């Protein structure tokens, strides 16, 4: 005979199960706005009875129930024993995660590149009255003015003033490009630290998750935190994620192992020009000495994975770090080189023409610009800077002749810089910058859209819908109330037996 209180047990299992369902729904609601949270769902299963009930009718066979018991008869039915929480699943689509991370890597690259190029545009500040183009125009114009007024000290002082402006503009631009490179170095150092920190977190989470793997439970919140770390990592560079058999993940970053189980590697940034060579042998670097492992040739700066005293180059292929590296190692040096070439061309040709002319003192063979190399070094020669009357405007030696000044002004039309006039050469630098900036802006906007789309898809799949959770809570509440009613019912039924049976005539 079965237990009288059987139904109570069933009701009790319902109370438990639905209370847990409510807990899960409450957890979802509490974390509705938590970044990276994947909603959890409770999976209820009906529990089955331990033994079948016999009908007592012998001689009848029911198909599918196997052998009968000779005395008890055919098997009649199986009675359920209630409900239990089978598991709490975490709603996460690995494929969507992959898509989000791929798009994030591209987005990280273009967004960072676009910002970097905008900073270069700010340095050049064109088109404007204070940009280098206008300053160069005023420089040539000052010589034109001098050509018509070679005797005038006002005209000479104007030449000095404009030439000084020009020199300062070149020096300024050169310095600001250097500063920008420096700030990119710092940004890369910060990113390298961030990557290392994320690697450490992931390894640690792998450890914690592995610890819980044996219990068969799915540690949703730990997994969420690990996925969040992976998301951020994908913005920084190109990653590949592999699941290993103990619930952990292995992560490859820029083609090298970053995390493997509970092991992780430190990432550092070595700036270009540090002179670290890729060969075996002691080389000095930050906190050095280091041995760099790899093929022959040279390592001209970038991210490295540090293991004790060994550096392994990391070839990032996307993400924020690649954008910074591209700017730092390719784009900025090229622009600085172009600026230097322009300054050198101006210095050399202006000096050449100036030497052929005579100052007001009748002396020729003087330089206009001081000796030097590059944009950083463009400045007036002391002779001319301190004594404007020494500017060689005259070709014949007479004070009223301004033809050398005319020749100096005419340099603006000469192809002195890599086959182009100074104005055209500078224009091509600015236009090139504009084209690159325009492309980066456009790509960045496109990627923003693409990334948003996959983020929305993922959020839709993983995210908490408050409406849904409210419905779940109401369901659980009703089920709980109903189960409580069952308890009350059974209680009344049993109390009939206990209180009212065997009381005939009372």
């Amino acid at each position, binding site marked *: 005979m079965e237990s009288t209180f059987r139904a109570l047990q069933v009701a009790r299992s319902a109370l438990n199960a639905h209370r847990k369902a409510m807990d899960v729904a409450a957890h979802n609601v509490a974390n509705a*706005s938590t970044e990276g949270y994947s909603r959890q769902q409770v999976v209820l299963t009906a529990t089955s009875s331990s033994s079948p009930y016999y009908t007592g009718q012998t001689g009848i066979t029911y198909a599918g129930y196997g052998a009968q018991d000779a005395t008890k008869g055919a098997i009649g039915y199986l009675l359920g024993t209630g409900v239990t929480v089978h598991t709490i699943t975490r709603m996460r689509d690995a494929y969507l995660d992959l898509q989000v991370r791929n798009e994030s890597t591209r987005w990280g690259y273009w967004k960072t590149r676009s910002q970097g*190029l*905008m900073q270069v*545009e700010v340095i*050049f500040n*064109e*088109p404007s009255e204070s940009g280098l*183009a*206008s300053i160069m*125009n*005023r420089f*040539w*114009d000052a010589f*034109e*003015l001098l*050509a*018509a007024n070679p*005797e005038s000290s006002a005209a000479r002082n104007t030449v000095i003033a404009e030439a000084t402006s020009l020199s300062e503009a070149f020096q300024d631009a050169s310095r600001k490009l250097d500063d920008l490179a420096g700030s990119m170095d710092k940004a890369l150092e910060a990113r390298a630290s961030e990557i290392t920190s994320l690697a450490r977190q992931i390894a640690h989470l792998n450890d914690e998750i592995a610890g819980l793997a044996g219990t068969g439970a799915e540690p949703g919140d730990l997994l969420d935190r690990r996925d969040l770390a992976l998301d951020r990592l994908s913005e920084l560079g190109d990653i590949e994620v592999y699941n290993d058999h103990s619930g952990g993940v292995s992560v490859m970053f820029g083609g090298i192992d970053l995390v493997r189980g509970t092991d992780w590697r430190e990432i550092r940034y070595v700036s270009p020009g540090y002179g670290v060579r890729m060969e075996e042998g002691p080389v000095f670097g930050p906190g050095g000495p280091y041995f760099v492992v790899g093929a022959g040739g040279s390592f001209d700066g970038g991210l490295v994975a540090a293991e004790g005293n060994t550096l392994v180059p990391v070839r990032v292929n996307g993400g924020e770090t690649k954008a910074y590296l591209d700017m730092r190692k390719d784009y900025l040096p090229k622009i600085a080189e172009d600026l230097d070439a322009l300054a050198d061309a101006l210095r050399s040709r202006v000096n050449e023409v100036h030497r052929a002319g005579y100052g007001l003192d009748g002396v020729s063979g003087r330089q206009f610009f001081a000796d030097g190399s590059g944009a950083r070094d463009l400045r007036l020669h002391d002779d001319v800077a301190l004594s404007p009357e020494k500017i060689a405007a*005259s070709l*014949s030696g*007479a*004070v*009223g*002749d*301004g*033809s050398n000044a*005319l020749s100096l*002004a*005419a340099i*603006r*039309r000469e192809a002195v810089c890599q086959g182009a006039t100074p*104005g055209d050469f*500078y*224009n*091509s630098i*600015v*236009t090139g*910058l*504009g*084209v*690159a*900036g*325009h492309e*980066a*802006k456009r790509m960045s906007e496109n990627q923003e859209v693409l990334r*948003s789309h996959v*983020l*929305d*898809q993922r*959020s*839709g*799949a993983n*995210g*908490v*819908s*408050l*409406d849904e959770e*409210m*419905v779940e809570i*109401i369901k659980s509440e009703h089920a709980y109330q109903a189960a409580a009613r069952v308890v009350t019912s059974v209680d009344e039924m049993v109390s009939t037996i206990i209180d009212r049976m065997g009381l005939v005539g009372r």
Partner: protein
Amino acid sequence: MRINPNVVAARFVRDLRVREENLSKYHHQLSSGRRIEWPSDDPVAAGESLRLRAALREVDRYMNNSEEARSWLEVADSALNEAIATMQRVRELNVQAANGTLSTDSRKAVLEEVKELSNHLVQVGNSMYGDRYIFAGQKTKTMPFDTAGGYHGDDGTLLREIGPGVRLVINVPGDQAFGSAFAALADLQAALEADDVGALGGSCLEKVDKGLTDLLNARTKLGGTLSRAEMSYYRLKDDRYSISKLLSDTEDVDMAEAIFRLRTEENAYRTALAAGAHIIQPTILDFLR
């Protein structure tokens, strides 16, 4: 795709941000009047803008030079006119003095006048434009003629650029214009003092005529240059207008269009706000008892 309120909210915010960026952009265009803030806004136009600004500055300089050349040439022209008038009077006196019937006293009077005219010519020869001597060649700070008519300038040319590589010669060296006139005056004075009627009627008159001819030639030459300077000025003015217009088309924002865009964007923004607010607010909580 499964949409939940988070997705709705995220999209709403994102779309608003795009609207706000656009609003800001059009507003900035209107308040600055410029279409291009950075080269990346429109790289080709930015390059054009730089090129046109350089061209504009050059044209302004050439216009300036043309104006200045014109002024200079007008001063020279007026000086030469004065010189020619002077020499014409000298010629009259020469002819008078060559007349054998003139008395010695009268000839002395002529001499005095010729001396005065000679001094006057020296003054004219030493004409200035501002603080520079216009007939001294390239030695513009040196007084070209001394009281005896001796020349201390040089024969250099003064150039003014009125176009790329186009240079006007705006001067005539003093000795080319006045040299023969002073030589004639010297001879004339000598002949008058010596009462040499033969010379007066012969070689003196020839020399005076040569002096006049050289002055006339100088004036004609500079007159031609003056015409060129004037024509160039007007041509440059037209060029300047064209370049300015092109520059404005390239750089400046079309006000009407910008205002239209701003208005449209404002409407779109309001619509987005209203629509978004309408759908992010209701949840099931509003309807549960």
